[in-house]
């Protein structure tokens, strides 16, 4: 039993954090979606996208738990969400891709040659992959996908859709005929969201993931993405706590640093408690999904719901403690606030995951009446 990270895992987190710090534009106040173009290449050069790829496919062969602190650094450094989309897609291909996909795609993902965007949300739908309106019929995919990070730059699209009434995953060339992407305005333009319209896009059977059990591939992608988002959210929360504490040490009012006032000190302490608790939930989820622990769907749901709440609370408090400065464009706290909000709403917001937490808990606690609580 050891709920801690080893030296390699910590140094991976530090490396990613330092690399992102070397790109000031990433956290600059202005909302330029192109400011992060170079970042993807830099992260590829340092080997980030090889981490989850098995050694037999040209990767490092690490597990998701090894990447937890690196993902946290991606969050705190405001790396574009497209980066973790590629990581989640890598896991999907490693776990549920067929031999051809693994052999052909994984080496190119590892080197940074291929980028993958994940398309989940649709107009008029929630987060449940079972309820998507887009479908594959007669080998053709039609539908509309919203809030897809990095779709314009992506080489591949990993699309959560339906086939024969069941959720499935299609991995398509982003430049296939019938695919049209368009930038979407959002709270966080630097997240680089796109709308993706799919009109009679040809889907060959070998473009699907999950083989005989596509539902499991979809569930896994949802859990992995939720966990990666939880990690990113904790990176933001830790960064906001740090900035707030440093500000409270130097900002003087009434003749003393405001951090000496309990009204401020106690807010900071509550932020620290929230960060500690959120990290506990996030790190455990990383371990649970890496090890395929039987409680991993519940652990991922807990992490996503709880870390979303923590990041929201910590960002709100950070701006409050910074006072008027916190509300200015120039200080740039709004970048973290905006990013935390869009991450909070990706791959299930709190209420959606809360329902999954209760359903899973009841199913384990009272198995005989299990069916009564199954999520619709």
């Amino acid at each position, binding site marked *: 039993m050891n709920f801690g990270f080893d030296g390699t895992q910590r140094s991976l987190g530090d490396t990613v954090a330092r690399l992102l710090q070397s790109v000031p534009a990433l956290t600059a106040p202005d909302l330029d979606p192109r400011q992060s173009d170079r970042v993807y290449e830099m992260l590829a050069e340092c080997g980030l996208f090889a981490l989850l790829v098995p050694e037999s496919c040209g990767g490092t062969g690490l597990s998701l738990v090894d990447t937890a602190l690196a993902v946290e650094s991606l969050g705190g450094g405001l790396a574009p969400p497209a980066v973790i989309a590629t990581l989640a897609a890598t896991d999907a291909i490693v776990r549920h891709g067929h031999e051809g996909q693994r052999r052909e795609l994984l080496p190119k993902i590892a080197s940074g040659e291929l980028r993958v965007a994940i398309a989940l949300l649709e107009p008029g739908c929630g987060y449940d992959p079972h309820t998507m309106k887009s479908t594959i019929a007669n080998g053709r995919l039609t539908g509309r996908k919203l809030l897809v990070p990095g779709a314009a730059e992506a080489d591949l699209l990993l699309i959560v859709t339906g086939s024969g009434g069941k959720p499935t995953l299609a991995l398509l060339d982003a430049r296939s005929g019938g695919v049209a992407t368009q930038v979407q305005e959002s709270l966080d333009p630097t997240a680089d969201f796109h709308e993706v319209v799919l009109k009679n896009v040809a889907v060959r059977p070998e473009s699907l993931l999950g083989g005989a059990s596509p539902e499991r591939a979809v569930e896994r992608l949802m859990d992995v993405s939720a966990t990666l988002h939880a990690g990113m959210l904790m990176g933001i929360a830790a960064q906001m706590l740090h900035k707030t504490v440093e500000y409270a040490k130097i900002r003087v009012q009434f003749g003393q640093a405001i951090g000496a006032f309990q009204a401020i000190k106690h807010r900071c302490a509550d932020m620290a408690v929230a960060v500690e*608790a959120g990290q506990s939930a996030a*790190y*455990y989820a990383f371990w649970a999904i890496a090890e395929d622990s039987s409680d991993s769907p519940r652990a991922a749901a807990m992490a996503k719901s709880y870390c979303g709440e923590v990041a929201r609370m910590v960002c709100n408090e950070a701006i409050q403690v910074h006072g008027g400065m916190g509300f200015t464009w120039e200080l740039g706290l709004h970048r973290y606030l905006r990013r935390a909000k869009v991450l909070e709403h990706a791959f299930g917001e709190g209420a959606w995951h809360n329902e999954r937490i209760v359903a899973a808990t009841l199913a384990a606690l009272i198995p005989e009446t299990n069916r009564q609580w199954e999520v619709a």
Partner: protein
Amino acid sequence: MDFSYSPAETEFRTALRSWLADALPTGWGETVFEPKDEDERARFRLDWERKLHAGGWSGINWPRAYGGRGATLVERAIFAEEMARARAPEGLNIIVGHNLVGTTLLRHGTEAQKQRFLPKIISSEEVWCQGFSEPNAGSDLASVRTRAERRGDKFIVNGQKIWTSFAQYADWCIALVRTDPEVRKHAGLSFLLINMKTPGITIRPLRQISGESEFNEMFFDDVQVPAENIVGEVNGGWAIAMTTLAFERGPEDALGRQMRFKQELDELLTTLASLKRDGGHVIDDPIIRQKLAKSITEVEIMRLNALRSISRYLNGEDRGPDVSLMKLFWSHAAQRLYDTALEALGPLAPLWGSAATAGGRFQLSWLQSKAFTIYSGSSEIQRNIIGERMLGLPR
């Protein structure tokens, strides 16, 4: 990161679990419960502790030299989990005697003190209480006024202590006393071991908001304490009291509590699954489910926080403000859990005792939970500790 247990640890767990199955009465926790009368319950808990000791399950991670089992910190955590899983009776001497006095003496006691006191703490032959707080020294603990004056080979103690749990059953007391009123308040304190049978000690029970009288006030009137019963140096008591508090808030304590909160939460979920209201089951109410999800998550995080702290110590870090983070989290999360419990019980939540749903356990726990954010350092004190010692904010 690894949540699996070694073969030796698993063996420890299996052995303990099977011992517990034999040692606890048949139907324990389902049809057989602790006595309702407080004095009977205290005797029952003490008997249980002595049974644990006879079975070799006392002083789990204490050195064998003082009668302990010499187990690892992970095994200590497993012990807390298994005891709570079996709903084993809470000890009478465990919280103060074992967790506070024992751990403090192990760090700061003289060899003679360790030899004299530790074996009888482990065997629960001697029950301890904690004389720290006073009417005018609560959160401001360093302001204690109870005086200890050196006369010959004795200290003469005069003053008053308050909120002393189990004083009515205690044989010994750890007391924070003022030995020098002239110096800065933190620098004039000493840490004494006082025999509760000494003439001049008066104990008066205090009634709590739950109606129970677990804690007391104590009066010291020319109480003679042998000079060798000081822990550490004269006027060096503050640092020692801080050790005691670090253990009071530690992960061993938090894990045991977590398992009990988890049992209450499971009991709540089971209760709500069969509780009908307005033609449906309460458990299907989506608003209640949202609140339950939060408590389910928070009770899980209590466990994870404690395991993270234990892992820090295993990896060579010392106890620090992390115990304040842990205590602040579990105390408020537990209060939210019981608020949610009563909210879910709905219109009949005001019923008490056997007339209430689940025998009134949630109502009693709800009242008891109000103490969590006050005792062993109020939330405000924990926030000061976190702000100043962990975040480095100015005093």
